[in-house]
C-alpha cells in the first residue's frame, strides 16, 4: 500500500502503428432461442479512431447443420446491423453440430460448434447482505442449480440490470469445473449489490471449450495493464478459421443453449 502511494498515472499519446488492411471481426451466436441467434460482422479501426466501427453489410452468412448438410441462410438487417436467420424458427438442437459460414469479398471463413445440453437451474433467490470484504451492502442474488455433466463444463452468466447489460471487464462471470461445481448446487452468489425494485435478468450459457477460452483470453487482455506482471498482450485465439483469402480474422462463434430468468428485487425473497 505504501508503495502504491508512490505511483502515479496520467494520460499520454503514443505513436502507434496501423494495420494496412482493416481486419474483419466475426461474432456469431447460435442458440436454442431465436432472439439470441445473430452474426455481427465489423471491421477493426485505428486505435485512436473514436468513430463507430464499420459494419460489414455485404457478406453471405449461413449455418450448416452437420448431420444433414442443411443450409440455414442469414440475412442482413439494416436496422440492427446484424445478420439473422432468414427463418426465425431455425434454431440449435441439442446434440447437433453446426458450422458457421461467412463469405465476404474473396474471403471465406468457417467455424464449428456442438450444441450442448443445458444445465438445470432450480431457483434464483436474493438476500440482503451487510457490507463484506470486496462487497458493498445490498441485495445479492444466488442461483441454485444442478450440473450433472462430467465434461464440457464451461459456463457464462450474463447479468442485465434494469435492461442494461453489465459489460465491464469485471462483469465476466465465467466458470468451469476447476474448483468443482458444488458451489452451483449450494448457490452461486452473483457479485452485485442490487437495490429494491431492480429488475434483473440472468442468462446462462454452456459453451464449447474454444469459445470459453476465447472469452477467458479476452478478459485477460482487458485486464492486461502492460506492466511487468502482465503477460505479453495477445489477441484472443479465434475459433474461426480462414478457408480462403486474407489470413487475418478476429472474433468467435458460439453454439450454446441459453437459460434465462428475470427477477424483480423486493424486500423479501420470493
Amino acid at each position, binding site marked *: *500500500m505504501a508503495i502504491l502511494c508512490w505511483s502515479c*498515472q496520467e*494520460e499520454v499519446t*503514443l505513436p502507434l502503428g496501423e494495420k494496412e488492411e482493416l481486419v474483419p471481426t466475426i461474432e456469431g451466436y447460435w442458440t436454442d432461442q431465436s432472439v439470441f441467434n445473430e452474426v455481427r460482422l465489423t471491421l477493426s479501426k485505428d*486505435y485512436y479512431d473514436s468513430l463507430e466501427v464499420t459494419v460489414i453489410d455485404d457478406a453471405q452468412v449461413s449455418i450448416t447443420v452437420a448431420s444433414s448438410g442443411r443450409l440455414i441462410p442469414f440475412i442482413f438487417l439494416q436496422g440492427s446491423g446484424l445478420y439473422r436467420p432468414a427463418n426465425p424458427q431455425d434454431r440449435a438442437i441439442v446434440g447437433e453440430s453446426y458450422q458457421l459460414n461467412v463469405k465476404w469479398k474473396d474471403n471465406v471463413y468457417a467455424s464449428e460448434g456442438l450444441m450442448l445440453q443445458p444445465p438445470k437451474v432450480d431457483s434464483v433467490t436474493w438476500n440482503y447482505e451487510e457490507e463484506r470484504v470486496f462487497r458493498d451492502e445490498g441485495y445479492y442474488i444466488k442461483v441454485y442449480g444442478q450440473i450433472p455433466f462430467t465434461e464440457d463444463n464451461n459456463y457464462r452468466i450474463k447479468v442485465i440490470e434494469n435492461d442494461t447489460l453489465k*459489460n465491464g471487464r469485471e462483469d465476466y462471470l465465467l466458470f468451469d469445473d476447476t474448483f468443482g461445481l458444488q458451489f452451483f448446487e449450494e448457490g452461486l452468489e452473483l457479485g452485485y449489490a442490487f437495490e429494491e425494485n431492480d429488475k434483473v435478468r440472468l442468462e446462462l450459457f454452456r459453451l464449447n471449450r*474454444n469459445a470459453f477460452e476465447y472469452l477467458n483470453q479476452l478478459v485477460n487482455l482487458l485486464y492486461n495493464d502492460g506492466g*511487468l506482471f502482465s503477460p505479453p498482450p495477445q489477441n484472443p485465439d479465434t475459433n474461426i478459421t480462414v478457408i480462403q483469402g486474407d489470413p487475418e480474422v478476429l472474433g468467435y462463434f458460439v453454439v450454446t443453449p441459453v437459460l434465462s430468468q428475470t427477477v424483480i428485487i423486493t424486500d423479501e425473497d420470493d
Partner: protein
Amino acid sequence: MSFFRVLTLFFLTSLGYQAFSQERRFISGEVVDASNSEPLVGANVYWEGNSTAGVVSDLDGKFQLEAIDFPNKLVISYVGYEKSVRIISAKEAEKSIRFFLKPDEMSLDEIIIQERRPDEQVKNMEMGKSTVPIETIKNIPALFGEVDLLRSLQLLPGVKSAGEGTTGIFVRGGSADQNLVQLDGAPVYNPSHFFGIFSVFNPDGIKSVDLYKGNMPASFGGRAASLIDVSLREGNNKQIRGEGGIGSISSRLTLDGPLFGKNSTFIVSARRTYADVFLKLSSDENLKNNKLNFHDLSGKLAFVLNDRDKITVSSYQGSDFLGLDEEFGLGWTNWVSSAAWSRVHSEKFFFDLEGYHSRYSYSVEFEDPDNGFEWTNKLSESGLKAIWTFLPDSKTELNWGIHSQYYNFAPVDLEPAPNSAIEEIVTNPKNGLLNNLFISGQYAFSPKLSVEGGLRWGLFSQVGKGVDYLYEGGVPGPDVEVSDTLSYGTLEKMHAYQGLEPRIAFRYLINEQFSVKTAYNRNFQYIQIASNSSAGLPIDRWILSGRYIEPVRSDQISVGLFHNFNQNRWEFSVEGYYKDLDNVIDLRNGAQVLFTDQVETELLAGKGWAYGVEFLLRKNVGKTTGWLAYTWSRTWRKIDGVSRNEAYNPRFDRPNDLTLVLNHEFSPSWSAGLTFVYTTGQAVSYPVGSYEVDNQSVPLYSDSRNLDRFPNYNRMDASVTWKNADKGRKWRGSWNFSIYNLYGRKNPFAYEFRTIYNDDINFEPSDGEIISAKPGVVMTYLFTFLPSLTYNFQF
C-alpha cells in the same frame, strides 16, 4: 522560591563549579582498540595545537594529561589506527574517559583492497565475474533508503532490470529463473520482498557477493545464466559488536561476537518493515485492518575446531505477508539453512563438505463463508556437496567433487474452508534427483599463458512419487485427450536426462597490466518457472524437467581485454559474448498453470540467443570510487507458437545500457554518492488498432511480439552521508539522506490501452453518467523524486 533566591543559588553553584574546575589539574582516560576493546599501549594523547605537551598511554592503555581550559579538543593518535579528535567539556573531564580507536584497515579503501587483489582482474582466470564490495553497495543511493544487494548488481554491465523498482535481474539474455541465487551455498528460490521491490538480503549480515555471468566454476551449475553467490558474514571473536539502522521502511539490527571463547563466533541479523504500523494509525477502518510487512532473520555460527578443521552453520528465514481486512491473506516464506566443514589436510590438500536445505512456501487464505479456502504450496531443494582441492605445485590447481540435489515440488494444496462450496484440488508432487560429478584444474604453461578447464556431468532423474500423463499422438496440448496415466512409486525413475557441461578458459598476460582472456561454458538447467510475465510473483510455479519438458541448455563463449593502469587504481575491461539457449519455455495464450496437474499442455518451448559487448571502467581506491559501465547487447527468443514462430525480443532486451556509479569522500564526516542509469526502453507490444467484440472495445495487437519500445529509461539518484566525526566513542552513528530519481523523470512502468470516460482517467462507468468516451493510453510511473532518511549505527 523567590526570583532573587533562585538567582543567588545559580551564582553560588556557578562559582562553585568554576572553583572546582580550577582545582582539577588532570584528566584521565583509557585508549582501547575499537575492534576488540584491548588496551593500546603508547598512544599519543594531546590537546589540539599542543602536541609537544602530550603524554602516551601506559601498559594498560591509560593516561593522565594536564587539563587546560574547557571545552577543548583532545587528540588521540596511534600508528595503524585512525586519529580521534574529541571535544572535552569540563563535565566530561571529571571522570575517566574511554577512547575507541578504529584500526586503519577498517576504512573503506582498505577493505576494498583486501577483498580484491589490485591486479586481480588482469591476472586471474575469471571472465564475466563481478564482485561488488558490501561497503560499496552500502554507499549506492538506495530506493527508500533500503540498501539492496540485487538492485546494486543491476548497475553492472551485462545485467538488466525487469523494470522500475524491481530486483529481478536478467544476465546476458537469460531470464530471471536462470539465475542461481544462493546464500552460503543454498539456493534461494524467491529472493525478493514486496513483489520484487526489495531483495531478501540484509546488507549488514552479508560478507560478500560474487556474480558469475555464465562462466561458473565447475563446482557450480544447474542454472543457465548466472550465479549470484552471497556469503553471510562470520562474527568476530573478540567482543560483542553491533550495527543497524532505522530507515523509512524498515529497521535492522546485527549482533556478532565470540560464542564460547575465541574459537567460535556467532552473528545474527534481523530486519523488519513497519508499513503495517502506519496502516494502524489510519482513520480508515478498511486500511486499519490491512497488513503489509516483511522480515528477515539470519544467523551464522562458526567453530574453529583446531588448526585444520572449521565448521560453519548458517540459516536464513524471511517472510512477507499481505492481509486485507482479516479476510484475505497472502504470505510467502524462504527458509534456507546450510552447514559446511572445511578441512586442511596439508598445505597442498583441502577438503570442503557442504550440506543445505532450502524451502520456499506460500499461502493464500480467503475467509468467506461460501467460497473460503486456504491454498498453500511449497517446494524444497536439499543438497550435499563435497569438494577436494589439490595444489601439487605452484603452477597447478586441481578441484574435484560431487554434488547431489533432491528437489521436492509439493502438489497444489487447496483446502476449502468448512462449509465452502469450493472443492479440493488434487495434483501430484514432482520430485527430481540431480547428481553431479565435477573436476576442474588450472595450469600455468608459462608466466604469461594459463588455462583453466572444468567438466561437470549431471544426471537428472525425475522420480516418484508422481504421475505422468500420456497423450493421443504423443504431444500434449490443451485439446489433446489423455490416453493413459502412469503412476510411479517413491523414488522410482520416471524420466532421466544426462549431460556434460564443459568449461574452459585461457588467459594470456601481455604485460603486468594487460591481459586477454577467452572462455567457453556450457550449463544445463533442470528446473524453470512456468511464467511469461517479466517480473516474478510469489505464486510463480516452478516445474521440473520430465517426459515433456527438456532441460534448458546454455552455451556461452566470451572474449575479453583487461587492463589496469595508474598503479592498479583504475581497471578497464571489454568483454564480448555470444550465448545460445535451447529448450527455453513460454506459455501458450491464456495458459492456466497454477492448478493444473498437466502443466505440459500449457507450455511452449524453443530457442534463444544473446550477444553483446560490455565496457567497464572502474576505480576502486582513493577518495573517489565507482565505475562507468556501458553495454550493448541483444537478446532473442524463437518459440513455436509465439510471434508467428519468428524470432522476437523479450521485454528485457535493452540494447544500450549505461551506468555511472560514483562515491566521493569529502572528509571523514561527509561523503556523497551518485548513480546515473540510462537504458533503451523495454521491448513491448503496442496495439495497431482496435475492434469491437462482445460489447467491448478491444486493442488489436500484431501477431509479432514486442516490436515497440518504451521510451528510453534514465534516472539519477544521489545520497549524502554524514558520519559523526570519530571521537573515540564506542557508538558510531551516521545519517544517510538519499533521493531516488533526483530530477523526477517519469519513467513509464506500464502503458494501459483502455477507454477513457469523461476525459478523466479515474472515471469508471459505474461512477455516474458517461458524457464522453474515447480510446486512450494511460501511463503508470513510479517513484519520482523520492527522498528518504536513514540513521545507521555501529557499536
